[in-house]
């Protein structure tokens, strides 16, 4: 189907879309009953014979309010109902779908017009939701809903009027950097692969997301799968990739099933296949599932896994853009990176001199443009998935969006970047409060903390920093692929020492040994897992020195 055809179909569909109930069912909200809420609502609506659409949406990121149900009485009126339980279904149907006005409230959550008439507040106020725009707001697997919101306009525009080389130039100029954690200019990879002149070239979408405390890619795949497919199509067009591998974490079953269903729809609509939008451009997507292990997020280990090899990193050079999957030029992009593309290219102006004159490029800081999706967890009142402009401070994220620590507690620091990142302290013991650091590529703190793929875990006064560091070290030791001797042996040795500290067997020399071994493991390892495994330990020793000194007795 061509683009005008898609738009016409979406217009037709939108007339019959309302009233509609969207239940935000995601990998995490299912754990608090969202799936049951959906089933009950569907059963109730069917039982009563109501002309109401019941559909699944992704989670909009407000974990603390899940499960969330959106009641769309008409195209222009939506109510957002939070913390809905299956037992609330009867009253929702009574109060919101069969009567008017809608006032009654019989459950513990809240119900409010959405978006609020007086503008966003609290959790929503500090966010800049460009990439998460659709997530939670549209029916995940309804392509017409995606098109109604402007979906595929970027792909249409790119294929019909911009050459692959120009797309690369545009994205280079907009300075889109990889959101997987390394912040390498995405289009630089496309350029590199194209420049080899060899084919086939591959695009490999890294949706492994194995790091604890990170759930952004899963939300995007569950809530806005067509956006990812559109982003993939644009990148594949720019690269000239015939085959795309979408490598989804082995435990992210819901993401995989939604992507598979979305892919089927997209193929049926001619958005993936030999003639994309009836153009001469064609490509195919194959979904692969992770074989287990944090190191799979490392791109060369990921390629080995696809090839059926053991998941250990490869030496570089050669780099994947020259010799990746089966020795072919391969670009590896993260899900979030690709999800930026539709929004960017729907409006970016291809004319030289006016490039950069669009929303994406205006958001962010001097050093980093655009937004970053942050997985905010830990001891905070409003944990969830949030999207903020690059350059926002951790304080804004923790306090303005996250609402600060639970009543009566103090934030003592955060873990930024998970097991490959480090700890930041929130007190003035080091001469400054580190929460005012602005997020962006590179190190947030030389001792270890990084933005990485965007995980921030808040620690308060109920938490022992030594135990936190031990847990992160245990994770690294468990996940070391074992290839490099320093990583295989060193992560285990560091864990042994940390176990001793936590269990009261610490001794004074332990801290020096930890510091020292962190350096050796970092210097002597091939991939990021080993190179950064010392981060939590070194930053913990530096910023929570008194806790460690105490533990070392």
């Amino acid at each position, binding site marked *: 189907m061509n683009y005008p055809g898609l738009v016409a179909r979406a217009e037709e569909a939108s007339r019959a879309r309302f009233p509609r109930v969207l239940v935000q069912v995601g990998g995490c909200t299912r754990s608090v009953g969202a799936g049951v809420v959906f089933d009950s609502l569907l059963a109730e609506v069917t039982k009563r014979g109501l002309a109401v659409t019941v559909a699944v949406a992704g989670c909009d990121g407000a974990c603390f309010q899940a499960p969330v149900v959106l009641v769309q009485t008409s195209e222009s009126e939506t109510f957002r109902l939070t913390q809905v339980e299956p037992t609330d279904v009867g009253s929702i149907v009574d109060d919101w779908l069969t009567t008017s006005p809608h006032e009654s409230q019989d459950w513990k959550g809240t119900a409010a017009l959405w978006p609020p008439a007086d503008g966003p507040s609290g959790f929503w106020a500090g966010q800049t939701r460009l990439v998460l725009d659709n997530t939670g707001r549209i029916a995940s697997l309804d392509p017409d809903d995606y098109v109604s919101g402007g979906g595929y306009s970027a792909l249409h525009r790119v294929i019909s009027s911009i050459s692959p080389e120009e797309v690369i130039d545009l994205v280079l100029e907009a300075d889109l950097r990889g959101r997987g954690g390394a912040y390498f200019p995405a289009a630089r990879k496309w350029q590199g692969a194209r420049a080899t002149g060899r084919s086939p070239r591959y695009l490999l979408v890294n949706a492994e997301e194995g790091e604890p405390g990170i759930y952004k890619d899963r939300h995007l795949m569950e809530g806005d799968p067509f956006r990812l497919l559109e982003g993939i199509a644009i990148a594949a067009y720019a690269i000239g990739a015939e085959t795309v591998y979408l490598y989804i974490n082995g435990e992210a079953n819901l993401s995989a099933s939604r992507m598979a269903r979305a892919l089927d729809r997209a193929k049926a609509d001619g958005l993936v296949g030999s003639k994309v939008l009836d153009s001469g451009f064609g490509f195919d997507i194959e979904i692969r599932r992770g074989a287990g*292990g944090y190191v799979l997020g490392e791109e060369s280990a990921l390629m080995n896994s696809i090839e059926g090899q*053991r998941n*250990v990193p490869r*030496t570089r*050079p050669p780099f994947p853009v020259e010799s990746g999957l089966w020795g072919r030029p391969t670009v590896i992009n993260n899900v979030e990176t690709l999800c930026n593309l539709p929004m960017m290219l729907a409006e970016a102006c291809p004319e030289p001199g006016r490039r950069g004159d669009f929303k994406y490029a205006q958001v962010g800081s001097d050093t980093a443009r655009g937004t970053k999706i942050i997985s905010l967890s830990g001891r905070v009142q409003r944990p969830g998935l949030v999207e903020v402009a690059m350059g926002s401070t951790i304080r804004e994220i923790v306090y303005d969006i996250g609402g600060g620590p639970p009543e009566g507690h103090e934030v003592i620091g955060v873990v930024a970047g998970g097991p490959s990142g480090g700890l930041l302290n929130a007190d003035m013991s080091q001469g400054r409060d580190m929460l005012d650091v602005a997020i962006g590529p590179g190190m947030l703190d030389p001792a270890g903390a990084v933005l990485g793929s965007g995980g921030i875990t808040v620690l308060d006064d109920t938490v022992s920093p030594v135990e936190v560091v031990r847990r992160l070290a245990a994770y690294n*030791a*468990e*996940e*070391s*692929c*074992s*290839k*490099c*001797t*320093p990583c*295989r*042996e*060193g*992560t*285990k*040795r560091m864990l042994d020492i940390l176990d001793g500290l936590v269990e009261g067997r610490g001794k004074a020399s332990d801290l020096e040994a930890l510091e*020292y*071994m962190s350096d*050796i493991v970092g*210097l*002597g*390892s*091939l991939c990021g897992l080993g190179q950064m495994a010392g981060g939590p330990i070194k930053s913990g020793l530096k910023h929570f020195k008194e806790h460690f000194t105490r533990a070392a007795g």
Partner: protein
Amino acid sequence: MDEITITVDGQQIKAEKDQTVIEAAREAGIYIPYLCWHPTLKAFGACRMCVVQIENMRGTPASCTTAATDGMVVTTKGPEVDQIRHDIMDMILSEHPHGCLTCPRIDHCGPQDICLRHANVVDRCVLCPQNERCELQDVVFHLQMNDSDLAYEYRNLPLDTSNPFIDHDMNLCIVCGRCVRACNEIEGVDAITFIERGDKTLIGTSLGGSLSDSGCTFCGACVDVCPVGAITEKDHKWSGAPERSITTICSHCSVGCQLELLVKGEKVVRSIADLSGPVNRGNSCAKGKFGYLFIHSDQRLTTPLIRKEGALVEASWEEALSLIAERLAQYKGPGFGAIASTRATNEECYLLQKFVRGVMASNNIDHRDSTCPSESVAPLGEMLGAAAMTNGFREMVDAKCLLVVGSDMTSDHPVAAIQVKEAVRQGATLIVVDPVETELALLATQWLRPRPNTEALLLAGMAKIIVDEDLLDQEFLSQKCEGLDQLKESLERFSLDQVEEAMGVDKGRLVEAARAYGTQSPAAIFYATGSSAQNAGPEIAKALADLAMLTGNLGVPASGVNPLRADANSQGAADMGCIPNTLPGYASLAQGAEAFGKAWGVSLPSESGAGYDEMMQRARDGSLKALLIVADTQRVDESPDPEALKNLEFLVVQDLFLTEAAKCADVVLPAATFAEKDGTFTNAERRVQKVNRVIEPLGGARPGWQIICDLARRIGASGFDYEGPHKVMEEIASLVPIYGGIRHDRLGVKGLQWPCPSLDHPGTPILHAESQNIGSGKGLLKPLDFQPAPAQADAEYPLLVMASTFREVKGVLELEGQVIATLNRNDAAALDLADSDEIEVVSKRGSVTARARVSPDSPVGIIMLAYPQTRVLVSTLYHAPADSTWDPTFLKGARARAAKLVAAGAGT
């Protein structure tokens, strides 16, 4: 090759463009410590022991994964890299038993001292099989360390000693991954892998089974590369460090691998594939790795035996030689014959035929080759000018198309098969023509499975397709060949439908194969004819030589026609004239009799001689009266039919073991093995390589060249006084033009490939490469008009036996194994056999017990015996000469019958 200069530790060294820093440094004699790196393997970059500092590069890159670039400045020592190495070694030692390093007695302990009563020592050096030959130890000493700062933890893992060849002690493993990579990169077998992850990672099999379950071929590559004692040979595991090592040539197949034999006392305790071997470059197979055990077998003959009153009794050499000299003097002339050993040296083969022709005045001399007899190679001499491989083994990795006919290469020539498998991995098309299911057949792009004895017809069909579709190399044909018209005419006489009908392979697939061979260049051919071709061997060779000439696949690397002869010196035996009517260097009797007679000071007999089969026939009918068999039996007993031997008036057998033939002999002479003598072998690719004496001959055994010279002198012949084998080679060189430039002291590590006509000639790796001529004139295309003889019905032995080996797979067979006999369901029904029946396959030669597999696809009239590889190796490598029933060649090609085996007592 681009040469660049880099600076290492202040020293300017030359390097090649594609070299890594560690390779360049190592070649210049600068040592950078390493553990996971190995010269035969791809860089892995895991142990991080080889870290260096490089100007303008961040951090401490691993020198094994960093490419050397022009002008690079590298520092291999210094506080920072030393510290990293120390710290990594600390971590390794904290999990590796290291009593060998920390023992307080280490400085005043002599080599191999055993100090079990020394009270202070609990963890002893002698408890490690690798003590004093351990690379980890070497690196630790280089780093001047003697202990780990970290607390030691013993993994306490059970040992795996479940297979007959290789022991695993994972408590000693340092997870360098060399073994896994050797198994993958060198052998392409992938029997072992890393298991688990994190600090639990070790080496094992992917599904946790034993090595034989996971498809291990026991090539021993993992053993050779293991830097510690984690993977060791079971035999001589505790023999400790060797006292000396000598490189020589493997005595098994015709590939000619160089092996380093390690010696302690006068005992060969280990065999390691030599990295500098021009053919094997550090690779070996189970035969090379473990097949040296026969040298010290307690069944070796160590004294001459003489038949007295019907029984063989021990005798002195004096007694034995006198007796032979006295008796043989009576049989000069055509009543005498000799069979040469394909494992004897060139010098011995030359002397034997000189003895037979010059002293005994007979032309009855031949050798036997179980996979590719000399008559299957002879057509190459006639058509291409040289009866040998046109090309070499190593280059085959570059072939774009490989046609393998009738050869179970992975089993018979495993190290040559490595190149074939690697070429396939790199995308080459592999076409296998074989009635038998071989490992390569399963790997092939196209496995064409003709009925036995119709291979030549299939190949003629391919030639027809190549001519009909005009896939000819016209330029090559017009400039270098003749006989094209006659060949074309012969191809017009049959249709593809007839070929299809006769051989049973779909003609569409034949067309595909012919196109692949005809269009993908370079295309190479390997062939053997011993398995099923019966008497059609020469026809196969003819068709293959035609195919190569039609497509111009000659004279360029990775092409040609390449017969795979069976044994270490099959080629040399033929080169040296151990064939009935051909003198050394393939001179015909008519051409060479005068020159050789003059050189030897005798007049040579003119009547034509008998080959092996004819000699046996003449023995039966009584016209051959005396026979000298030189056998050098190493693995399996290949003795001729005892019925024929018993009919002789006088039989002398010179061998390593008391074989079936020796048991029939009047005199048995104990010969020295390849490890006990000097000389040369010529491998299948015409490479003359030096065989070096490693140990003194066992007991009273003597080298074959001495025996034959002693014997000749006793008979009164002159011209048998040599200072040593090198003098024999000088005489060979003076008479045989293709060996003209060959001298022992010229062979070095790489040997010389004939033709090598003069002392300044570098040898000829590829035949027909430079000169316009093929051989001495033009390549001769021969008409292909082979008609397979109709299968002869034989009521007593209705089945033809084919044989191969297979790798055991868990659940199919256990280690002790069983032969699987596959036969067509119609044959099975006729013989009243059902699937899984225990059956006995009986031929005139002997019998084998097997498990029946009834298949609708298996060819009619054939019984396919598949031997479990491990069982075959155990049997043939450990107790030489082995129980022949466990050798796949035992019944191969024989006619047999099969019947259900009835368990004793089950008859009621």
